[in-house]
């Protein structure tokens, strides 16, 4: 009879890959960001549309950290641009939302995610996003367009930050501890 050595450890993967949990989680968060960006749009009274995808960047950053916020928020949003037909925006979006997720994730998780930290994260991350879009639009589309888009982008960040924060609070209830039910 074999001696019991305690819980068996799964063999280490010989390939230097990130864990399957990360692959799966990041895939889901990215897909979620893209799907939400493409399907949930709120028509604003004054101008065009506000897309709820903004909140997913903050959600990923607050709940899963700056790496998730940067990668999933950045790639997810950029993919939405590609799939909606304005792929030339994708590189800009990648940088803008990636920076947003990065900064929001670092600042927003300070002191275990204290309220002031979250707000700092939204403010700083949002500023990165708005600034990136503003300067990119100035260069590529002209100062006029950049200026017109500015207030809308600011509003989008504020609303996205708010919803993203509420979302991360709502989901936190389920994550620790989660009882193993069907």
């Amino acid at each position, binding site marked *: 009879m074999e001696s019991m050595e305690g819980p068996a450890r*799964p063999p280490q*993967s*010989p*390939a*230097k*890959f*990130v*864990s*399957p*949990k*990360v*692959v*799966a*989680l*990041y*895939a*889901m*968060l*990215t*897909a*979620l960001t*893209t*799907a*939400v960006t*493409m*399907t*949930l749009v*709120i*028509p604003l009274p004054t101008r065009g549309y506000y897309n*709820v995808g903004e*909140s997913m960047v903050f*959600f990923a950053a607050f709940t899963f950290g700056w790496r998730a916020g940067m990668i999933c928020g950045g*790639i*997810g949003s950029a*993919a939405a641009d*590609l*799939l*909606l*037909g*304005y*792929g*030339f925006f*994708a590189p800009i979006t990648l940088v803008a939302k990636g920076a947003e997720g990065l900064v929001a994730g670092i600042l927003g998780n300070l002191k275990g995610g204290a309220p002031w930290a979250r707000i700092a994260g939204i403010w700083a991350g949002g500023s990165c996003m708005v600034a990136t879009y503003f300067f990119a639009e100035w260069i*590529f*589309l*002209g*100062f*006029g*367009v950049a*200026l*017109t888009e500015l207030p809308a982008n600011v509003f989008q960040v504020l*609303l996205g930050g*708010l*919803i993203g924060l*509420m*979302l991360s609070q*709502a*989901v936190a209830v*389920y*994550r620790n501890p989660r009882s193993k039910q069907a």
Partner: protein
Amino acid sequence: MTGFVDLFTESNSALHRMDPRVKIASVIFLSLLALIISELGYLLVLAGVMVLLLLIGRASFSKTMFAFSYVSRVMLLIVVLWPIFDPSGTPVLLEFGPIKITGPGILAGLATAVRVFCLAAVWYVLMFTTSQRDLVRALVKLGLRFDYGLSLAISLRFLPTFGATVESIKDAQRARGLELDRGGVAKRARNYLAVLVPTTITALKTADTLALALQSRAYGARADRTYLRELSMRAIDYVALVVVVAAFALPFAAKYLLSMPL
């Protein structure tokens, strides 16, 4: 309408058959080309080339119209707003207060708008003629690590699923009296949570199951994998690549080395 029109369309054009790596390279070089050219005349030529590519790729008219609906709005904004902020050159056509509308200003605005068209078109041609699977494979072949590529591929595969889930959840909550199109900003934010929370939790639960599925399929046992269909460059792919690089390099040289007005 929501954006889940799959841009990729099955067809057998020359562009569909081209190696996706060449197509990606083309997008990069042609985008750079659009960015360095600033004369309206040459940009229009480039735009013509883009339209030609769309035709070669047998782009569907309706999908193209859908994709360009947003871009055309941006182009219009540029044409209208650019001259207001660009008072350079002569002749001055209109003047009120600090704002000077000049001929060159208008032309610059038009040029920028055409450039945006070219940029949008080249990306659109890529998305239109390349399946998502081929895109990811091209990236992996170009050096993207397999696990990242896998995550990307899984993400793309779940897009339509999540799109459907979001719609289903919207329906389910509407059946409980939720009205997504009413209310001030604060109310709407709360309303959207009723859709976002179930969607997110569903996604996270799927992630858990997926992680298990990956492990049970020997994820990580090898650093690479074999594919049923390998990507390989044909002679015509190399030719196309050379043409595209030349298409960029020659104007680049003309403009920056020979100082020709481009």
